[in-house]
């Protein structure tokens, strides 16, 4: 297919390039013109990270054929402002804290630019509508809207008053502009997907489509025969130990005998382009013998359940016993009992996982999105059988994590690729790959029972917590321990009995996520307290005031609280606020 020569205005500069007829505008900008300020968050026109302006209007460049801009104008974040002179939007995004991870920022800025070009004095409602196609997971949009309003005012020549952050210097007592803010608003911050190296190969994962299957054979030949495919790696190519995991090492870098969830990596294909690597990944012939799968942790706990791991399906049981719960329930005038279910949640950081690796002399270097480079370093050393002083992990600018980027995700695949081929290797997950293979929030089944006196004081609390850790442990021990210790939230009870279980199933791995096992507890203890309040004729505030921990209280792990017990104070502030409404 012949390339087409197109001429268009790119950030005001006439640009002529020869472009493939099936190239999308986003690819042209990022891969061929090196303008990596525009991001790919989903590849489906859903997230807004790839927003650029075509003839002044915001578009999803991931779905826009590049040849279509011939004779038209394109504006990207790189043309918005410069280090020497930021655009007011960029400036106010910084001053009002509208930039956090920075991955959605270029798209938001371009959308806002288009809005202000048409409507110099937008209302907050008009701003909300205009940015409704730009997803942001960090800011909650409030600061973004404030920043756009402030920039609009400045552009109209109005003075902007009110709180604003200031440039660095001493930070004590002052709200300062984030140190990595300027590159993020300029589009020059380097996320892992933005980094390239000469001679770089691209890698793609071959994942099990089955939730539970024995791997009979893996034939990489059909992939290797393809022109441009460099290597196809399986567990046999691992020089070190094929196991990892942050608390216990129950997970394989690449599956050997068994796949335990749909999406578990079995092989990695290295090729000259990312697209080729993905096409070749589909050619790797893996024979599976499917096994019965278990998706419900309550089923998996039964003694006769099929074992997902050799040691059985109950990974962890955390018990908490305080006082005498039977006595406590005997003394109770009121007993409330409920069952609860919470769901699995994806972190949905705007930046899908990405990593690039290379040899720096005898040092294996991995640059990647991450929340925990030190942990990754140890795992990569284990994989490659290298001493840790020969592995260096550099955290690239990371586009949101929320706990999901603490785990080893794809960094080992590129490291193994570089180890085998000697060349830099890059892997960037699509949104689908991210959803398929990344960790999730634990889904819970909970049985709760509270006893209280007629005047609303808790006498006994029972909780059974069953957390679905999916196919592997990840942070399960810690998360389910946190759940157990947080089972009563901020409430004081003399007699407590908690059983918290982490259970294997054939579902996606659950890992760390914001709150780390605590958020699943509040939808249980709060409604039960409300129920007690109703039965005692108390207000929701009164029942909480009565039961809340305070200095001198003993927690469910029998720690005596001394200082910094803010629960009651918080409650009073909320109560005051509610009264004033």
């Amino acid at each position, binding site marked *: 297919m012949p390339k087409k020569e197109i001429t268009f205005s790119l950030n005001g500069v006439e640009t002529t390039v020869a472009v493939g007829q*099936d190239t999308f505008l986003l690819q042209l900008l990022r891969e061929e013109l090196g303008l990596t300020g525009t991001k790919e968050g989903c590849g489906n026109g859903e997230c807004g990270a790839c927003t650029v302006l075509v003839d002044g209007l915001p578009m999803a460049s991931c779905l826009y054929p590049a040849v279509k801009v011939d004779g038209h104008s394109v504006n990207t974040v790189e043309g918005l402002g410069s280090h020497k002179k930021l655009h007011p939007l960029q400036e106010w995004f910084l001053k009002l804290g509208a930039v956090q991870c920075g991955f959605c920022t270029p798209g938001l800025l371009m959308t806002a630019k288009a809005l202000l070009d048409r409507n110099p004095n937008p209302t907050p409602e008009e701003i909300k509508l205009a940015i409704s196609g730009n997803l942001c997971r960090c800011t909650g949009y409030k600061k973004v809207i404030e920043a756009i309003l402030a920039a609009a005012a400045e552009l109209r020549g109005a003075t902007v008053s009110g709180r604003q952050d200031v440039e660095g210097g001493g930070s004590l007592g002052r709200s300062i502009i984030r140190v990595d803010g300027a590159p993020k608003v300029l589009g020059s911050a380097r996320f892992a997907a933005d980094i390239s190296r000469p001679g770089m190969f691209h890698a793609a994962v071959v994942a099990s489509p089955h939730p539970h299957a024995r791997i009979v054979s893996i034939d990489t030949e059909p992939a290797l025969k393809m022109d441009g495919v460099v290597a196809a790696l399986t567990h046999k190519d691992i020089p070190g130990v094929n196991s990892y995991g942050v608390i216990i090492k129950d997970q394989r870098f690449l599956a050997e005998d068994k796949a335990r969830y749909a999406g578990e990596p079995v092989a990695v294909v290295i090729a000259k382009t990312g697209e080729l690597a993905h096409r070749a990944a589909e050619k790797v012939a893996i024979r599976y013998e499917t096994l019965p799968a278990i998706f419900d942790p309550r089923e998996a706990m039964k003694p006769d359940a099929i074992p997902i791991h050799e040691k059985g399906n109950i990974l962890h049981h955390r018990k908490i016993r305080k006082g005498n719960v039977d006595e406590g329930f005997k003394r109770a005038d009121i007993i409330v009992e409920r069952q609860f279910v919470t769901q699995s949640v994806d972190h949905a950081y705007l930046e899908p996982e990405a990593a690039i690796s290379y040899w720096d002399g005898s040092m294996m270097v991995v640059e990647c999105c991450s929340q925990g480079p030190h942990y990754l370093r140890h795992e990569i050393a284990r994989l490659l059988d290298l001493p840790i002083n020969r592995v260096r992990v550099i955290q690239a600018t990371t586009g949101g994590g929320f706990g999901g980027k603490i785990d080893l995700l794809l960094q080992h695949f590129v490291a193994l690729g570089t180890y085998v081929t000697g060349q830099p290797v890059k892997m960037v997950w699509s949104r689908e790959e991210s959803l398929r293979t990344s960790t999730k929030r634990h889904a819970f089944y909970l049985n709760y029972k509270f006893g209280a006196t007629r005047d609303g004081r808790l006498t006994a609390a029972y909780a059974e917590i069953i957390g679905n850790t999916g196919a592997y442990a990840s942070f399960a021990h810690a998360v389910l321990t946190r759940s157990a210790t947080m089972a009563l939230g901020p409430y004081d009870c003399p007699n407590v009995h908690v059983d918290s279980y982490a259970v294997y199933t054939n579902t996606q791995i659950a890992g760390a996520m914001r709150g780390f096992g605590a958020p699943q507890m509040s939808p249980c203890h709060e409604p039960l307290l409300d129920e007690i309040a109703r039965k005692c004729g108390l207000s929701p505030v009164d029942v909480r005031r009565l039961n809340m921990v305070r200095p001198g209280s003993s927690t469910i792990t029998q720690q005596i609280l001394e200082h910094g017990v803010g629960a009651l104070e918080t409650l009073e502030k909320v109560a005051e606020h509610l009264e004033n409404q």
Partner: protein
Amino acid sequence: MRWQRYEVMSSIQETMSFLAQHKGKARMVAGGTDLMVQIRAMREPEEQTTLLDISRVEEMRSIVESGSFLLVGAAVTMAELAGSPLAQNKAKALAQGAGWMGSPQIRNVATIGGNVVNAQPAADGNVPLTALGATARISSPEGRREVAIGELCLGVGTCSINPSRELVTHFKIPLCQPPLQASAMRRMSKRKAFTLPQLSAAVRVELNESAEKFQRVKIVAAPVSPVPWRAMRAEEALAGVPVTMDAINAAAALAREDASPRDSLRGSAEYRKEMVEVLVRRALLDALSELGRAPRA
């Protein structure tokens, strides 16, 4: 390689000659906001394909009043439709639906023609166009034809227009002329923006000369069946009856009775069925309020 060639068309005539030349090996693309997602999901192209981009064909880019019709070019974007005073005044339900579809980024590119040919059961363009009684003008190298929107959709994602053989060029929409004709659309969804509807309803109301009675009413709800669904009994029940709240309530109840929506991720069949009544009633009241009318109690 996702497709072999991408040609940006400049006229209907040029498109026809490309179609004739490629003999079914070329297919139309407009905004491509759905097609590109489908193509991106394919690793290997199915066959040699040329895409003919008609989104810049000037003749298909305008919204004009022509006699008693509104003529909307198929390459008009959803954003343009939503923002068009002409559409807002003379085909309000369509302007509303277009403004709810997708996100601003999608609406700036997606076209009304693409929305119709894509034939999704609750497409925000198809639903109001069906209620408005619109027809599609279709050109092929063999000639031109005109088909009522209601007859274009054959099933989920299946439209009687073959994008490798023919091109929808315009939509002809009977004008809603105040003080006797108006249209309105209602839509409910789990989020306020950028989401598919759980349910939508569009109506076109025409009153008799004295404006005391309903003359003719069209009521569409979706997704209730694989194609935009007409609440026929409800429509008939309103014909010739005085504009009262009782009549509206009765028609909305009939619509609910006759609707048999399905369960999906976005809503249960049971809930959707209940909501058919609510949205139809509200859409009818909206259309009347467009005419400055409130029904008698």
